[in-house]
């Protein structure tokens, strides 16, 4: 039974930004529960404004709602005021489409994009009245599953989820819901359903894997039965799925308040720190005419005045110039702008940026990531200082006053010298800008801290020490502060927690739960983050935080060894070796580095691979 709208509207008079909880957006899909057999709640463990900007969930929403026998509704994490109001009035967490309590859905599926949102999952389950721990869920509780980049190391959350889905979910979600449909018809026996789900490629059911403590206390999962795979290999869609052309248009402002079209999946640069670059292989481009057509339809259906061409590296799309020109030609008269979220550092990108910003010059963003050539070679960021200077000159020359630069501190092999090189580089660019543009020039510099991520060549590397990071931040501040340069850096404690959970094992489940029980919420929000809760939770659970952020020994099993992103450990080790030797690996569209993706997925997706749609040479 849905919750009465009157009840919800009484809650909404008490909270900030009530539009977050009211639903009813343009193009929201409300299907009849009596005419559908399987009901999925798509959950995002952060506030509405962030969750609504997630393209992956929008794709799944569209896919599932196109099935005549299934429906998908949405739910986001209520902010503290709403969570409190709901608890006080005993209103359970509900979906935005029909105000149905989450506990009445067959499946609740969470999107895992960021480790610091994990406590919000527990808040949401708790508000929904669904038992937090998977093994305590009784027959009538929904199946609680998760997907997204976080599922590539599911262990810290294994305690809470019935199943994880590894890889691209557009096809797999249909397999999974079909299985649920059959289970419902057969009388819904939870243990049987879990065993059946484990047979769907890409699905990991933690309950079917033992993770007994090893001698050093670590817990590595092993398949407990021969019927489930020892390794779960990610699934992909062979070609990019059709663009949803009737996306939801929220009334309130959200983070990405514009039309979004995914133009490419995967990235061929092979930056060694980058998890997305490793897990989203192979590269798949959407054809220009398909994009142009989708843009026409989305703009007509939404009335947006901006379209964003989403990909990991927009300037890499082979038809990007044509695409931008065509889009502007068709829609510029109606005031439509184009945005490209990730530009390569080169003159071509500046040209592209200029073509889309004919009137307003907001700011240009580039990511050299490291200050010295040596270190950029280590991380395989194929950008030279000359590239950067030329790009900056081109940008200043074409009228930009503001440039934003992203750097990381704490990369493997980094020394204070490398940090000093960052300071030198940004000062050089500021001075160049002043020469070309005068004193209005502003260089924004973001100094984040490198977090070693699973499935990358740096997955064995330690997190840098707080002492090193703080000292290097200071070195840069001392040398590159002042007029025309705006520095920002990430909070150490948040980095530390992200690093710990990123490479965490099953022991962290209890730590996450303990932290949540002591009030950890919205840890990604600086004003809400309380690191002391986490330190206390670690101590209470007898878990040594250092083990998680220290380096790992290559060859020993890792907590995510049972999950395969399609790239082999041998490749990751080779890339790591080359990194330590300072040897770059060129763009893999030019030269294959045998990452393993063709072997891992080539057979299953032979036809698509042969059509060379993946652009593997």
């Amino acid at each position: 039974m849905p919750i009465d709208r009157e009840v919800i509207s009484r809650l909404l008079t008490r909270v900030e930004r009530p539009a977050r909880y009211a639903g009813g957006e343009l193009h929201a899909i409300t299907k009849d529960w009596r005419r559908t057999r399987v009901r999925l709640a798509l959950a995002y463990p952060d506030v509405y404004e962030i969750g609504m900007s997630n393209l992956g969930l929008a794709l799944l929403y569209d896919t599932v709602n196109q099935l005549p026998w299934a429906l998908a509704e949405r739910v986001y994490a209520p902010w503290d005021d709403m969570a409190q109001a709901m608890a006080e009035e005993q209103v359970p967490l509900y979906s935005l489409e029909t105000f149905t309590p989450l506990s009445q859905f067959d499946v609740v599926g969470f999107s895992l994009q960021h480790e610091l949102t994990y406590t919000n999952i527990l808040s949401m389950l708790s508000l929904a009245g669904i038992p937090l721990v998977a093994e305590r869920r009784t027959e009538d509780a929904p199946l609680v599953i998760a997907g997204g980049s976080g599922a590539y190391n599911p262990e810290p959350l294994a305690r809470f989820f019935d199943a994880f889905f590894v890889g691209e979910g557009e096809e797999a979600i249909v397999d999974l819901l079909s299985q649920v449909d059959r289970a419902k018809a057969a009388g819904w026996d939870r243990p049987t359903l879990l065993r059946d789900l484990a047979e769907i490629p890409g699905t990991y059911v933690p309950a079917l894997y033992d993770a007994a403590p090893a001698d050093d206390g670590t817990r590595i999962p092993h398949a407990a039965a021969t019927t489930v795979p020892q390794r779960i290999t990610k699934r992909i869609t062979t070609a990019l799925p059709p663009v949803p052309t009737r996306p939801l248009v929220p009334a309130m402002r959200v983070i990405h308040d514009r039309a979004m079209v995914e133009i490419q999946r995967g990235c061929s640069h092979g930056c060694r720190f980058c998890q997305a670059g490793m897990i989203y292989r192979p590269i798949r481009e959407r054809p220009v005419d398909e994009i142009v057509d989708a843009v026409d339809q989305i703009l007509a259906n939404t009335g947006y005045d901006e379209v964003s061409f989403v990909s990991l590296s927009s300037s890499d799309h082979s038809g990007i110039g044509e695409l931008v020109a065509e889009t502007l030609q068709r829609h510029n008269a109606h005031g439509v702008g184009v945005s490209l979220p990730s530009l390569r550092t080169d003159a071509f990108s500046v040209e592209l940026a200029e073509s889309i910003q004919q009137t307003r010059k907001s700011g240009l963003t580039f990511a050299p990531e490291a200050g010295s050539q040596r270190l950029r070679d280590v991380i395989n960021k194929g950008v030279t200082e000359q590239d950067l200077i030329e790009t900056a000159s081109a940008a200043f020359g074409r009228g930009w006053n503001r440039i934003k630069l992203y750097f990381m501190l704490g990369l493997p092999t980094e020394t204070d010298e490398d940090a000093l090189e960052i300071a030198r580089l940004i000062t050089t660019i500021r001075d160049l800008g002043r020469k070309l543009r005068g004193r209005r020039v502003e260089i924004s510099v973001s100094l984040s801290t490198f977090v070693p991520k699973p499935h990358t060549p740096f997955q064995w590397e330690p997190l840098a020490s707080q002492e090193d990071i703080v000292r290097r931040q200071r070195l840069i501040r001392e040398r590159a502060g002042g007029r025309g340069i705006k520095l920002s850096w990430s909070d150490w404690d948040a980095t530390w927690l992200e690093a710990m959970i990123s490479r965490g094992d099953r022991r962290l489940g209890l730590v996450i739960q303990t932290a949540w029980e002591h009030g950890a919420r919205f840890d990604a929000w600086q004003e809400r983050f309380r690191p002391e809760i986490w330190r206390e939770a670690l101590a209470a659970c007898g878990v040594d935080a250092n083990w998680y952020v220290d380096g790992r020994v290559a060859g020993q099993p890792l907590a995510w060894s049972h999950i395969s992103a399609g790239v082999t450990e041998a490749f990751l080790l080779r890339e790591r070796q080359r990194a330590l030797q300072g040897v770059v690996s060129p763009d893999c569209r030019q030269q294959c580095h045998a990452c393993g993706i063709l072997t891992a997925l080539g057979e299953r997706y032979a036809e698509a691979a042969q059509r060379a749609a993946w652009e593997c040479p």
Partner: protein
Amino acid sequence: MSMLTTVMQRVRVVFAVGWPLQYASILDMGRLWERLLRRAELPLAYTQGYNPHARLQFADALPVGYTSACEMLDIYLGEPVDLEELPDRLQTQAPPGLGIVSAAEVALDAKAPQSLMREAVYQVYLRTDCQAAEIAAALSTLLQRTSIPFERERRGRVQSLELRELIHDLGYVSEDPPSHEVHMRLRCGSNGSGRPADVLDAAGLTYTDLRVHRTQLIWEERLS
């Protein structure tokens, strides 16, 4: 083809706001209308300059949470459109919670609607344990006062105002326990607007839930 910048026609649209649009802020409303008009493919006139945007003028910002039968918006068009079919054209593209009431042409040089706003009429529904007679008495006592000094807190800032000037009429209407309906005619516009919640506070009435529905905007031309 470039963007239209010369205004050829000015259209005044009256629209109703219901669930869930009552939770949209005035900024949300501006974006929402611009998108609606683009979906309806109206020949909007855009402002000139570095950041062109459609020219839209609301008569008044409807406070977040209020529903309304009578919001008003002036739209500036670069080419004249058929007014007869305009309401349907807009309604087809309207998001849930937005109802088009009417659309009529106004002179290009007519005064901006927000400068003409004088009063707004509200149906106010409060859930309370108070009895009907109690509420009616409190309201009429308030209306008989010649001065009502009032402090209003908004976003952490306290503002002192003379509430009496903002109340033009007030009265108890009917009950549907535990809900009671109250009628209010309050000043509205650039010289300050009365808020139904403030009026109830000043009358010493407490409630567990408050619903406000705006039924009429009264502007200068209509007053005279």
